[in-house]
């Protein structure tokens, strides 16, 4: 592994189903983030984590939850998916908050 790995790369999900998007980094970065990218809106922050064991809400946290049990992993869970959560999701990490972030390749999620 080099950098940030996201899985799956794409997924079609039935509305109402639970889904966890996985994110792993091997750079020992303290901060991690989840963004969603939608046409014309750029990237919007869903949740972030300053360090293992702590998380915080971003601009659009509703319908999503995260956990940070260790430094490397930062999964994003949709408890009950809705069509408005159709998007491309990017995980990112940085040495600390508010510094240059490194991004994964993204997960394209379609909720039908």
């Amino acid at each position: 592994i080099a950098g940030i790995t996201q899985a799956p790369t794409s997924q079609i999900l039935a509305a109402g189903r639970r889904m966890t998007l996985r994110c792993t980094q091997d750079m020992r970065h303290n901060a991690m983030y989840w963004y969603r990218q939608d046409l014309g809106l750029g990237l919007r922050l869903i949740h972030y984590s300053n360090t293992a064991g702590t998380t915080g809400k971003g601009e659009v946290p509703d319908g999503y939850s995260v956990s940070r049990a260790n430094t490397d992993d930062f999964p994003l869970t949709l408890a009950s998916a809705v069509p408005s959560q159709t998007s491309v999701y990017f995980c990112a990490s940085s040495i600390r908050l508010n510094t240059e972030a490194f991004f994964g390749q993204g997960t394209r999620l379609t909720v039908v």
Partner: protein
Amino acid sequence: AQSVTQLDSHVSVSEGTPVLLRCNYSSSYSPSLFWYVQHPNKGLQLLLKYTSAATLVKGINGFEAEFKKSETSFHLTKPSAHMSDAAEYFCVVGYGNKLVFGAGTILRVKS
């Protein structure tokens, strides 16, 4: 509230001509500023960053940006566009505990 505005959603240039992608931000203090590039179906890659060491910042692939505090701008430039520069570019501002993204500018390069 802090915000970042990319003034053009699309920019089209001919290969070999200069590129200018405009970005303005609002902030009550000097923020960290970044430009990222995203090629189709790819993740985001850092082009350059400003962290108060110098107002003119040089990045990868011949890009540079100038921080102008009086104008609250951080425009991205390149003297001569290449076909491989065609992508979407994001101006990003670091505030407190998060990075705030502009809506993006799609750069088209014509041969």
